[in-house]
C-alpha cells in the first residue's frame, strides 16, 4: 500500500502510473503551498488535483503548507504521517528525476517514519521520458514557464512531439532540464491510461511577462472517455 506525492504535473502522475503497475496505490498526497516559489512543491493549479484524483478514482489527502523553506519539510512529514495513519501506507512514491535536494529530503522523512521510498523516474533520460509520456497516451498541458527562453506560446500549450523537439534543442543550447524539474516548466495532466475520466478545461486565463508565465485554470470538469 503506497501513497504518491502528487502535484498534478506529469512527473507525479507518471510515477503514480508506474506504482499502480507494480504495487497498490492507496492515496495521493498533495501539499498545497501558499508560497509561489516553494522549494519542494509544484504550485500552479495545485488545488485542481482533487479533480485529477476523482478522474483516477483515488482518495486525495490535501495538506496545507506555508511553503517556507524548512517548515514545509515538517508539513510534508506531517502529511505523510497522516497518510500512514489514515490509509495504512507502507511507502511513498515521488516523481523525482534528478533533484538530489528533493529526493534526499523525502528519503529522510521516509526513514524517520519507517516507510519505503520509491522514485520510479529517477535518472530517466528526460527526452526519452517525454516521448514515453505521449506514446503511453498522456495528455499534458504546460501551465507555467519560469525561465529564458520560453516565450508566451508555451503557456497553455499541449505537450506534443513538436514541443519535445523544441525542448531538445533548448536543452542543447541553454542546458535547461527538458522535463522542467529545475523549475523551468510546470505541467498539468488532463488524461492518461490511469484516468477513468478525462479532464476538460472550460475556462482558463493566461499571464506572461519577461519569460515567466502561468495558465490559471478557472473552470474544468470531468468527461467520460
Amino acid at each position, binding site marked *: 500500500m503506497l501513497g504518491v506525492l502528487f502535484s498534478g504535473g506529469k512527473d507525479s502522475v507518471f510515477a503514480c502510473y*508506474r*506504482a499502480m503497475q*507494480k*504495487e497498490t496505490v492507496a492515496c495521493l498526497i498533495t501539499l498545497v503551498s501558499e508560497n509561489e516559489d516553494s522549494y519542494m512543491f509544484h504550485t500552479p493549479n495545485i488545488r485542481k488535483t482533487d479533480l485529477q484524483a476523482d478522474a483516477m478514482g483515488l482518495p486525495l489527502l490535501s495538506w496545507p503548507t506555508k511553503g517556507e523553506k524548512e517548515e514545509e519539510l515538517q508539513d510534508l512529514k506531517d502529511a505523510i504521517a497522516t497518510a500512514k495513519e489514515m490509509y495504512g501506507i507502507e*511507502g511513498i*512514491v515521488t516523481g523525482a528525476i534528478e533533484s*538530489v535536494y528533493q529526493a*534526499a529530503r523525502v*528519503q*529522510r522523512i*521516509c*526513514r524517520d517514519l*519507517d*516507510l*519505503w*521510498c*520509491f*522514485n*520510479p*523516474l*529517477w*535518472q*530517466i*533520460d528526460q527526452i526519452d521520458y517525454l516521448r514515453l509520456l505521449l506514446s503511453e497516451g498522456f495528455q499534458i498541458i504546460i501551465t507555467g514557464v519560469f525561465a529564458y527562453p520560453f516565450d508566451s506560446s508555451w503557456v497553455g500549450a499541449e505537450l506534443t512531439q513538436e514541443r519535445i523537439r523544441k525542448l531538445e534543442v533548448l536543452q542543447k543550447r541553454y542546458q535547461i532540464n527538458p522535463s522542467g524539474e529545475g523549475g523551468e516548466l510546470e505541467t498539468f495532466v488532463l488524461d492518461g491510461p490511469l484516468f477513468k475520466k478525462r479532464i476538460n478545461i472550460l475556462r482558463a486565463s493566461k499571464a506572461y511577462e519577461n519569460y515567466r508565465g502561468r495558465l490559471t485554470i478557472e473552470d474544468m470538469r470531468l468527461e467520460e472517455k
Partner: protein
Amino acid sequence: MILLVDLCYKKDSLSGYEFVHPIANILKRIEAPHGIVHYTGLHGDLLESAEKIILCGTALKDNAYCEQIGQFSWLKSYEKPVLGICAGMQIIGLAFGGEIVSQPTIGLEKIEIIRETPLLGEPRQIEGYHLHNFGVTMPDGFDLVAGVQQRAEAFSHCQRSIYGIIFHPEVRNRWIVERFANL
C-alpha cells in the same frame, strides 16, 4: 555482455526503475551490451557468459538480499570484473568475511579517494550520492580505496578486479560505470 544483477526485494519490482534501470541506461548510452537478471535467477551459465558483473543497489528499507547471502558464494572464486554498488558492496563484503554495520547516510557527501585504482583513478576528493542504512567492514584480502578503514566508501580486491562502492554512481558520477565497462 555486462550482467546487471538486480538485488531488489522481488523480481521486476518498482525499485528496479530506481536502482537498476539508471545503470542500464548509462551502459546503453555508451553502447555496452548488457543484460539484467534478478539475483534469485542467477545461475552458472549466466555467470559464465557474462564478461563483467554489476551488483546494483536497493531501496533504503530493502535488505532482503542479506538473508540470501548463499546465492553469492560464487563471488569467492569469480575471476571476471565485479562492481558492487551500495547493497552490492555489502554483498561483496559479506561474501569475503566482512560484517554489516549500521552507517545511515542520505544525500551528497564528500568522498576521499586515497588509493589509485583503474576504477576510480588517482587519489582526490569527489562528491557522491549516498542512500544507505548499512555499510560493511573491510573484508580480508581487500584494499581500502576511498573513505576510512571504519567507514569504507570504496574497496577493491587485492588481486582481482572486484570493487565495492557504497555511494550511487548513477547520480553525478556516471563516469565510474563507464570506466568499469571499459576495464
